[in-house]
């Protein structure tokens, strides 16, 4: 229950973050490409569960069930008494592991599957049958949970060795052995007091460790990113009003929300600012930081710029996975640009997902339907606002880019707000005066 409450209430955006860096497809080729590798089964189960992280509470329940299952299996070997508390240690370590946004759920499945196999083998009669069982189980287990050369299964950054995961894995096996050895000295007690005390001791110590290691600062940043991706402009402003963001993503999203509500120029001075970097930061070559900026590019009508930014962000996902969020945005930018066949590819892929299918089905009929696109509140507006002049853009947004956007369509209130905000933040009075005189 504590795990569910923690991930559901204190850490939900870490789960959203996880979900957006994968795209689980109900497709035989996709499944085969995963399960054909050692560790593929654990990886597939992890990815399957991670798709539910789009709804944080469902994700929290899944994690709760997985960690409870591991604890229950370990407790079967540990028994009661003073050792009972030890049965929680592997699950606590896995909880600690999952605090890291790059820790993949496949790792937890690998531990669980290993323990299920060990438990199953212990159920076999001793002697030849059990030996045969072990010989048969080992290669199967290697296929299901073993890591392969690129080590992508259990941690997003293949270079990083997920120590905590392996410690949890080893402890899950070592604790029963330890208990077996130590049982000579500490005898089982039949009452509930000692097991409860032992649990309370482990829970307090490990709970404190989990809480201390939770990255609530990152959670806040992820919250802003999540709200931007779901276009929750009012909620963003409400959140910023409660506690003003002081990180780049938070400030970028806060300014975007203010602009989307048409109050950026009136209210930006009431919030923390970070110069140009808080308005439209330079695009970095990672998978996370460009996404809020890409959202701003998109809402401004810089469709090609948004498309490139999202594409590059997706390519920067280090374990080569794709992203439902990115596919969706790439389908949208291609639709707005009139590249219907490319948009169709992304939409057809999204049709093979659980949670993006309905959106893809709704969007597919729009392809090629110029009238419906023109009438669409988002795509029609962004088409109208998009650039009318061609030039090369760079990773650094310049006032000329915003000016060109605005003068291409003076209805583009977003471009207007961003341009004036740009001048306000840089204090470039000369350019501002030039713009005002040009705009008369």
């Amino acid at each position, binding site marked *: 229950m504590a795990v569910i409450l923690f991930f559901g209430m204190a850490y939900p955006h870490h789960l959203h973050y996880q979900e957006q860096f994968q795209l689980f497809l109900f497709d035989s080729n996709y499944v085969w490409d995963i399960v054909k590798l050692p560790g593929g089964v654990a990886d597939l189960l992890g990815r399957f569960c991670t798709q539910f992280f789009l709804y944080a509470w469902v994700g929290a329940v899944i994690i709760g069930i997985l960690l409870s299952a591991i604890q229950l299996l370990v407790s079967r070997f540990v028994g009661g008494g003073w050792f009972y508390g030890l049965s929680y240690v592997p699950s606590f370590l896995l909880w600690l592991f999952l605090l890291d946004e790059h820790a993949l759920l496949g790792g937890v499945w690998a531990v669980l599957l290993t323990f299920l196999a060990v438990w199953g083998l212990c159920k076999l009669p001793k002697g030849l049958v059990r030996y045969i069982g072990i010989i048969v189980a080992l290669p199967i287990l290697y296929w299901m949970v073993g890591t392969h*050369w*690129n080590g992508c299964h259990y941690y997003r*950054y*293949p*270079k990083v060795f997920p120590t905590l995961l392996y410690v949890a894995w080893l402890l899950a096996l070592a604790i029963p052995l330890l208990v077996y050895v130590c049982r000579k000295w500490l005898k089982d007690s039949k009452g509930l007091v000692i097991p409860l005390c032992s649990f309370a001791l482990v829970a307090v110590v490990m709970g404190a460790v989990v809480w201390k290691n939770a990255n609530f600062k990152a959670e806040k940043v992820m919250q802003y990113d999540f709200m931007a991706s779901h276009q929750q402009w009012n909620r963003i402003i409400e959140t910023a009003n409660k506690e003003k963001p002081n990180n780049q993503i938070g400030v970028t999203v806060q300014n975007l929300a203010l602009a989307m509500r048409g109050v950026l120029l009136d209210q930006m001075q009431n919030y923390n600012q970070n110069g140009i970097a808080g308005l439209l930061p330079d695009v970095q*070559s990672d998978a996370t930081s460009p996404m809020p900026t890409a959202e701003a590019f998109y809402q401004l009508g*810089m469709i*090609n*710029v948004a498309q*490139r930014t999202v*594409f*590059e962000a997706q*390519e*920067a*996902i*280090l374990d*080569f996975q794709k992203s439902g969020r990115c596919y969706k945005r790439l389908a949208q930018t291609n639709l707005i*640009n009139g*590249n219907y*066949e*490319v948009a*169709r*590819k*992304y939409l*057809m*892929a999204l049709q093979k997902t659980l949670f993006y299918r309905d959106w893809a089905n709704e969007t597919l009929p729009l392809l090629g339907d110029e009238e419906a696109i023109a009438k669409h509140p988002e795509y029609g507006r962004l088409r109208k606002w*998009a*650039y*009318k*002049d*061609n*030039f*090369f*853009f*760079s990773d650094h947004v310049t006032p000329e*880019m915003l000016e*060109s956007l605005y003068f291409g369509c003076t209805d583009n209130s977003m471009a207007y707000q961003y341009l004036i905000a740009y001048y306000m933040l840089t204090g470039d009075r000369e350019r501002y005066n030039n713009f005002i005189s040009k705009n008369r």
Partner: protein
Amino acid sequence: MKSYIQSYVMFLVAAMLLLSSCAGHPDVPSSSKESKSLPAIYPDYCNVIIPYNIAPLNFMLPADEYSECVARITTPDGKQQTYGNGVKVQIPEDEWHEMLAASKGKSLKIEVWGKKGDEWLSFNPFDIIVAEDPIDEYLSYRLIEPSYVAWTFMEIAQRNITSFEETQIFNNEITNINKEKGQCINCHSYQNYKTDNMLFHVRLSNAGTVIVNDGKISRVNLKRDYTISSGVYPAWHPTEKLIAFSTNLTRQAFHTLNPNKIEVYDLASDMILYDVKTDSVTVVSNDSTLLEVYPTWSPDGKYLYYCKSVPLPEEMADKDIRTTYPKIQYNLYRRSFDVATHNFGDEELVYDAASADKSVTLPRISPDGRYLLFALGQYGCFHSRHHDADIVCIPMEKYTGTALTAETSSPVDMSLVNSDGYSDSYPSWSSNGHWIMVASRRDDDNYSRVYFAYFKDGKVGKAFLLPQEDPEHNVFLLKSYNRPEFMIEPVKISVDEFSKVFDK
């Protein structure tokens, strides 16, 4: 006992019938409405000329319009077979090759029926003409997202064209020692369609050019103090252990509006000759004011062809290439080559594209030396990103020492090969000169696909897509086929063996 045997036999017959229906030989609809048009099959294989050794041309009807498809194939000897499973027609390889063997030099007749709602439609039949000339058994390509700057997984793969077997030659993961830096692999190239002498580049992490010399692998650094970069676009000499490379300082820029989206251009480019035996690099041309790129040898090895930019108008000469790029155009040149001395002769202008406000790239001479293929667009050197890029084929007999132009070159009619408004690029010849291969973005304007077309006596057949086991494969594949190259044999070195060269 008798009744037991009887029921056993009946069970066997039923099982065989069930199995045969699983192989996909459905009945032709008993009644249908004539549609009086060719079926809108994907890929479009209507009236194409194909080699007799190609994999089954599986196809499908659009799934959003039809619920079922049945095709009946008739061979010249009158034998018929039907196929169809849902909207897809997937023909078993052995049956297909049997049909092709019986049709060499003749045609297969294809009749297609499609079920729309409750009604079956019958379409006009079409032919698939089976040429007597085979296609090279293998093809290799790089599979890559059509990306901007960043990329993830990429691989160089080889495909058996006579079947659907695809295997990996190399990938950018196995020797990548720096994930943040990433690794790019590119420009696979073979000597004379054979794989005992081949190469590919590895950039960034663990960089180098992997060269296979008579089956022996080595990794070399082609960058020298006197070159602007390491080797980029390669061309193996057809008989010698020599490789011509361009050296390029390449940049990319991104359009806000232009549908070409990405512009790839060179700030500088030269040409070098690499001697595999001595590991020595000599400069072939390094005019600092002009750009030389895309070397290719004549099949006899006596000429090196390449593209070279024409000087910009004086008023533009000092301007940023990001503003002058639409004016940068390349012509086609050649220089004679003395195999004994490794000396090059004077430069000859072979094809003047700039005079017609065009730019020529990626030349390839046919194996018999009689025809020249290249990609032609309005400007620049990277036509795979240019919507107007088309393939041009000219007879070399027209070149008598005076530069050819669009008017004087008597180009072959390539209208059945080129697409309208989509990039057609990277042309190449099969080893027998009867099959042209191009990389085209015609399917969706973004993802390059491999197309083949028959070529004989200066006439070209309709281009058709590289067949796949699942005809829907290309619809879902979010990768481009980059740099398709014919091979007459597979690369025999495994990914692991290649990776060992990085341990040294």
